[in-house]
């Protein structure tokens, strides 16, 4: 971190680190329960670590000062990618472990922290926020600077955003292990972590706008619209869904102000739009930048990208109620959710089609370049899972699929096939550039990773489709006498082979991701002096 900072900035950083350490100390000292005390200690340790790191470097040689403004600030992106890969290991590791527990329940050790119910949110938070979120932040810095042809507005904020964000993720997952949770899906973290995230997010958005204000291009490129929608709408969702009353300021426990059916609607308004604005909009931003860059072809249709952007921003917000079909939510709200879910197919397929049409004329490169193939497969899976999503939102279909593993299959065709694939495509594009190389250190390993990822995804998703449809049918089948044919337990037993297959598919996917992490490490270690010739030139700027 410190090599990218001037001495004055290191002093400011040192001040912030001391502040963080003090905050941690105060939390740990005041806390009346375990979770908050541990979280205080984590913040304290992180703050002290940063104090040593920055304090030790306070009088070291600063980077060539004036020259710095002539380069993009890519050190935060590099750190963000490292964290992305670290969280990939944690999140996918937890995913495989909980997948295995469903096949092998005796495997649960007799400690609370390793129980299925506590580890499942570790998987979802670790993978969505840790893996996905770090990838979004890291690539957004990269894309923003290059499309604006401007350096990030200041050198400290990106570190505050990344380190603060990772502290949030760490607080969240360690909280679940200790049993501290709001139990709202994808929003399980307790009130102080939620507040912390709001602060980080405001700094992130301010940095985004300040950098845009320095842009040398009159137009804001479409990738940035998506990143902005991601940042803004996630803020709105996060704040509304997490409004809660803490039992005491010295404890982790809080009660959400929402109750019953209103809570259900707000939760799934949040939950589905976490899918829309976290797992879709931000990643479409990634796609709209890296696909054209890697394939060397401009986006196929500008009009289509406008249509799909506003379609996605406007339609998605309505669809959350499709998670609540046939429940106690009023019927008309369910109907609205279903209708908009079906209409959503239009902008979704417009995006996927736009991406695939962009590759027209570059098919030779798709065949030869595994990195571009990751992006192509991502676009295909994006198209497939949005089609599936619209289909599952139709009320009678949902009566069969809801509560079953079909949903889990659908989620993972989106997250493995689309989100993770586009992340890997972006990583394989950025990392060689960070290392000043033409290609990854082990080009063959990218090929291996690609096939492991595709196969793993297919095994996972096909197993879960079978599992879900079997479950749904068994639950609703009546015999000739008008009695239910199967007990619930019979449906549980029928799942065993699919749960085993899913675990194997997940292992293949994780193996691929581990290869990617090692490959990135090897590439960054073999870095040569940064070759800037291939990069988009920075616009000349007044001195900072």
């Amino acid at each position, binding site marked *: 971190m410190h090599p990218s900072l001037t001495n004055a900035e290191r002093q400011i950083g040192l001040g912030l680190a001391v502040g963080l350490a003090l905050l941690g100390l105060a939390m740990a000292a005041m806390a009346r329960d375990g979770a908050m005390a541990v979280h205080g200690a984590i913040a304290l340790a992180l703050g002290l670590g940063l104090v040593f790191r920055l304090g030790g470097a306070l009088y070291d040689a600063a980077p060539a000062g004036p020259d710095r403004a002539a380069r993009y600030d890519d050190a935060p992106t590099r750190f963000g990618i490292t964290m992305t890969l670290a969280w990939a290991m944690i999140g996918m590791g937890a995913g495989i472990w909980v997948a295995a527990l469903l096949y092998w*329940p005796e495997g649960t050790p007799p400690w609370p922290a390793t129980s299925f119910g506590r580890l499942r949110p570790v998987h979802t938070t670790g993978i969505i926020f840790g893996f996905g979120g770090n990838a979004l932040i890291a690539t957004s810095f990269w894309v923003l600077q290059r499309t604006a042809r401007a350096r990030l507005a200041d050198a400290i904020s990106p570190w505050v955003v990344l380190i603060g964000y990772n502290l949030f993720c760490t607080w969240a997952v360690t909280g679940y292990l200790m049993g*501290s949770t709001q139990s709202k899906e994808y929003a399980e973290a307790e009130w102080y972590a939620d507040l912390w995230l709001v602060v980080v997010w405001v700094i992130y958005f301010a940095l985004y706008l300040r950098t845009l204000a320095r842009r040398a291009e009159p137009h*804001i490129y479409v990738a940035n619209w998506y990143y902005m929608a991601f940042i803004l709408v996630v803020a709105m969702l996060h704040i509304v869904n997490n409004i809660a009353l803490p039992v005491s300021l010295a404890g982790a*426990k809080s009660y959400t102000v929402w109750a019953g059916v209103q809570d259900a609607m707000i939760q799934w308004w949040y939950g589905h739009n976490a899918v829309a*604005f976290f797992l879709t909009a931000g990643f479409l931003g990634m796609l709209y930048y890296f696909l054209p860059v890697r394939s060397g072809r401009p986006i196929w249709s500008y009009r289509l990208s406008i249509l799909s952007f506003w379609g996605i921003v406007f339609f998605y917000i309505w669809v959350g109620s499709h998670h609540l079909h046939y*429940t*106690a939510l009023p019927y008309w709200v369910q109907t609205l959710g279903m209708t908009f879910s079906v209409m959503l197919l239009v902008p979704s397929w417009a995006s996927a089609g736009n991406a695939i049409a962009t590759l027209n004329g570059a098919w030779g490169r798709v065949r030869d370049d595994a990195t571009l193939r990751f992006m192509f497969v991502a676009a295909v899976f994006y198209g497939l899972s949005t089609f599936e999503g619209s289909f599952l939102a139709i009320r009678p279909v949902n009566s069969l699929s809801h*509560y079953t593993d079909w949903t889990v299959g659908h989620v993972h065709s989106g997250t493995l096939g689309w989100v993770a694939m586009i992340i890997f495509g972006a990583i394989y594009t950025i990392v060689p550039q960070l290392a000043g190389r033409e290609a990854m250190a082990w080009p063959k390993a990218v090929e291996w990773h690609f096939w492991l990822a595709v196969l793993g995804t297919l095994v996972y998703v096909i197993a879960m489709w079978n599992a879900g449809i079997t479950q749904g049918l068994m639950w609703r089948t009546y015999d000739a006498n008008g009695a239910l044919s199967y007990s619930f337990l019979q449906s549980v037993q029928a799942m065993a082979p699919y749960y085993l297959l899913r675990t194997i598919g997940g292992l293949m996917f994780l193996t691929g991701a581990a290869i990617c992490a090692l490959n990135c490490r090897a590439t960054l270690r073999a870095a040569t002096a940064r070759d800037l010739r291939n990069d988009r030139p920075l616009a000349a700027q007044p001195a900072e």
Partner: protein
Amino acid sequence: MVLRLHYNLEKLSMGLVGAIILAASVGGIVEIAPLFTIDETVEIPADLRVLTPLELAGREIYMREGCYACHSQMVRSLADEIDRYGPYSLASESAYDHPMLWGSKRTGPDLARVGGKYSDPWQVAHLIDPRAVVPASIMPAYPWLMRPLDTAGLPGALATLARLGLPYDAAMIAGAKADALAQSRPDGPGIQGFQDRHGDRPALRAFDGDPGRLTEMDALVAYLQSLGTQTAAASALLEEARHEP
């Protein structure tokens, strides 16, 4: 024209920000705001009771252990669900639930109406080792639930919920710790006070089989046994529907 407009919008970062916020707000406002006003979603049945302190502690354990990750508490209005689980769930039944625990995945069966379905000893044995009771079960074992229940946070929890509008009165808040103990000691001295504050509907039993100790198991089983019994509104509605020609 529209393209031209957009072409200009792309040059204004604050313009894009405003447009995004506007476009992304409509759906949420239309779908959520009415839920706070219409009868169907704000009505509270006359016989709906709040959870007792012990049951509330059990609910916290249910959330802490992530039971909601495998169990729903929402019977949908579909014939097979009514046949399997009982009357479909009404909005009013979860009016006091901060947060709701409707769930999204049924790795195990729905629990909205599990109260009274099994005996306390069955529940205890099942939670300690599900496979001892149901050999093919894939539910995790929870042997650590036999540890003592920490009741220190209960008055604060009730007070917070009261501030959110739940009908916990000052006596219930002050007596929360004593009432948690009393509910699990059917022959103990605190019964009278408990019933003064919470009425005679909540079950009074040594849920974990041992009246001498107050454990997390007492709390969780008390909670499970209360599910679906806090109001009779849903079964009344189903009865009515069945008797209509």
